[in-house]
């Protein structure tokens, strides 16, 4: 809203916010909805984390100790679904809700009621998904990829899982459309596209990817449903269908989905590193173009997930080379972050530590990704623990560390209080050490030939599995520090100034801390935008 009152100087209470449960259930405020997304994501992170610990407890030593193989398989499938759709994606949408309107000088998201709806779909989706744990036949156990015909052999959980995925997809689409329309149409006057913070840019491209691929997922799971219940044969070989086409369709969604989880992380790191290097971001425009290039390439590399199903040599070469090509724009980003830090006045507050860990460890995930892109090598690594190590390096010290770094970076702005930095550094070091103890040995296990998704294994894999499980429990329990630090900050943290970090740039830092319930009701001035846009 642009409200011009020439002679009106009336001030009123600025904090018109509803109270009680209505504030949350009927909320259309982007900050409240962002908070709900983040709380939901944190809850699901611990639910999915508990599933991971069940997996790692079972794998602590050879033999079957705690759970039967069916339940073990359910845990691997559910852990993935919960972490991807319940923890990482909602966390990014929560951060988008909190930050995008403040960073582009908008009073709220473009479609606030749609925003409310897109959040409130999620708890129902996950009640349905987690409810499958209690139905005859148990939870889905065919992996999060739902490959037919295995997925079609599930019990009563099958339609529940499909409906839950539809709901999650609907929530994602509504959220993505809202982000797209907000960024395109709600920017403050003077905030042109190349003045937007990189977090907004990366989210715009992420939202575009979501809009492009979600119908493919929705169509794929609907076809699974009709194959199961209505006698169609989209993927049933017995009726002339092609089960391999499901893999193609699924990964056409699935690979951009990986970038949906990682692109906003690039945006966060691009905000944090310049702040704690006390230098503008090196190569802002090249970062934007690199992000767009990664977004584009993500559509043409899906088959590298399924080289072993068999495909023409030309197809193998195309997907191998296209996959390797992604390392070019990614390399541009890594180079720019390093160049930003070069000769900077670096300090190592918790957000910077998480950003640096992201830089090193995500790069390890990137390198193992390059190894997996090489077709002959992939034939050896396919479905081994090497793949498990690879994508966990991308998603845990990649996406998750960036989310935690973002929370530590913007928490003072959200709650108006500073958190215990010493404790946050303890959280960082425990996380950084244990994440490597957890996942690095899995490279060795995979190279030695241990397959993924098995509850028992040959004794030759015992030692590294034990190390990995110790890392899992260390990493899992150390994450309990995060909610403790946040609660402690909210209750008793020292008041934070508007610009919580001395060289932070961006419109959000022009607002007081905590950010008022309604921000930028009057669009920021050109001078404020210019100050905020010093990338």
């Amino acid at each position, binding site marked *: 809203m642009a409200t011009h009152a020439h002679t009106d100087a009336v001030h009123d209470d600025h904090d018109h916010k509803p109270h009680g449960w209505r504030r949350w259930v009927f909320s259309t405020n982007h900050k409240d909805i962002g908070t709900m997304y983040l709380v939901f994501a944190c809850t699901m992170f611990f639910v999915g984390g508990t599933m991971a610990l069940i997996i790692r407890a079972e794998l602590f030593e050879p033999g079957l100790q705690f759970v039967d193989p069916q339940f073990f398989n359910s845990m691997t499938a559910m852990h993935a679904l919960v972490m991807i759709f319940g923890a990482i994606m909602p966390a990014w949408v929560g951060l988008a809700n909190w930050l995008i309107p403040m960073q582009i000088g908008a009073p709220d998201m473009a479609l606030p009621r749609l925003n409310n709806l897109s959040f409130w779909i999620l708890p129902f989706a996950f009640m349905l998904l987690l409810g499958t744990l209690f139905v005859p036949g148990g939870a889905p156990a065919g992996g999060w990829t739902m490959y037919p015909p295995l997925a079609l052999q599930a019990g009563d959980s099958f339609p529940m899982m499909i409906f839950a995925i539809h709901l999650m997809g609907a929530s994602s689409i509504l959220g993505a459309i809202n982000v797209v329309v907000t960024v395109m149409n709600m920017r403050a006057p003077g905030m042109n596209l190349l003045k937007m913070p990189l977090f907004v840019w990366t989210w715009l491209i992420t939202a*575009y990817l979501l809009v492009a691929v979600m119908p493919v997922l929705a169509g794929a799971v609907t076809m699974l449903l009709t194959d199961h219940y209505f006698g169609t044969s989209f993927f049933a070989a017995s009726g002339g269908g092609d089960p391999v086409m499901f893999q193609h369709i699924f990964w056409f969604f699935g690979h951009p989905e990986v970038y949906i989880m990682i692109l906003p992380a690039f945006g966060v790191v691009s905000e944090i590193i310049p702040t704690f290097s006390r230098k503008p971001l090196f190569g802002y425009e090249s970062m934007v173009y690199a992000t767009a290039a990664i977004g584009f390439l993500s559509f043409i590399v899906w088959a590298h997930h399924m080289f072993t199903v068999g495909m023409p040599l030309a197809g193998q070469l195309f997907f191998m080379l296209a996959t390797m090509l992604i390392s070019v724009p990614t390399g541009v980003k890594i180079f720019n972050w390093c160049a930003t830090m070069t000769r900077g006045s670096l300090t190592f507050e918790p957000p910077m530590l998480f950003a640096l860990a992201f830089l090193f460890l995500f790069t390890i995930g990137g390198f193992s990704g390059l190894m997996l892109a090489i077709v002959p090598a992939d034939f050896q690594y396919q479905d081994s623990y090497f793949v498990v190590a690879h994508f966990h390096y991308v998603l845990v010290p990649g996406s998750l560390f960036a989310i935690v770094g973002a929370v530590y970076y913007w928490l003072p702005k959200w709650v108006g209080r500073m958190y215990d930095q010493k404790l946050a550094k303890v959280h960082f070091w425990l996380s950084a050490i244990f994440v490597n103890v957890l996942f690095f040995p899995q490279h060795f296990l995979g190279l030695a030939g241990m397959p993924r998704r098995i509850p028992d294994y040959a004794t030759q894999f015992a030692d590294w599995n034990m190390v990995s499980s110790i890392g899992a429990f260390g990493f899992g329990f150390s994450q309990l520090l995060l909610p403790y630090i946040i609660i402690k900050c909210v209750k008793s943290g020292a008041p934070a100034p508007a610009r919580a970090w001395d060289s932070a740039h961006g419109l959000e830092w022009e607002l007081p801390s905590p950010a008022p319930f309604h921000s930028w009701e009057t669009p920021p001035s050109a001078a404020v935008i210019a100050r905020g846009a010093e990338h």
Partner: protein
Amino acid sequence: MTEPAVRIALVPHCSLTPAGAWTFFLATCGVSFGVAALLTLRGFWPVLVFAALEMLLLGWALYASMQRRHRVETIEITENSVAIDTCVHGAVVHTEFPRHWAQVRLRGDVSPLLPARLLIESGGRRCEIGSFLTEQERQRLAARLAPLIGAMAASPPLDTVHNRG
């Protein structure tokens, strides 16, 4: 004609031009329907249905957001009157109420799922303002107008209302 003591113009902000919106929408449709068409040709037509549904939703979202640019609402308050000019696509609708017999009402009691309506009422007539605002903006505007217009059968002196701020 007396100079209005208070003039408030409500102008929705849009950073997207209609041409930009069309370009963006068509480009997105091109990608989405392109993929869906390829899969449909291979027999996987349900993808096309979901792509169409999603593009409809995106189109509606862009349309709803772009509608904002066609609307300007001007509220002029003098000692004796409250005048509202609503300009939609260049057509101006003028509504005037006697300030003494007018009041501001924020009706949010219909359903918590529906947006509240900000109304200026007098003598059985009513005029809605700020329908394009967010809920919070509408509440803020209502809180701002209430002391300026006053309750029914009350005309607080405007200069006093000003000075109170």
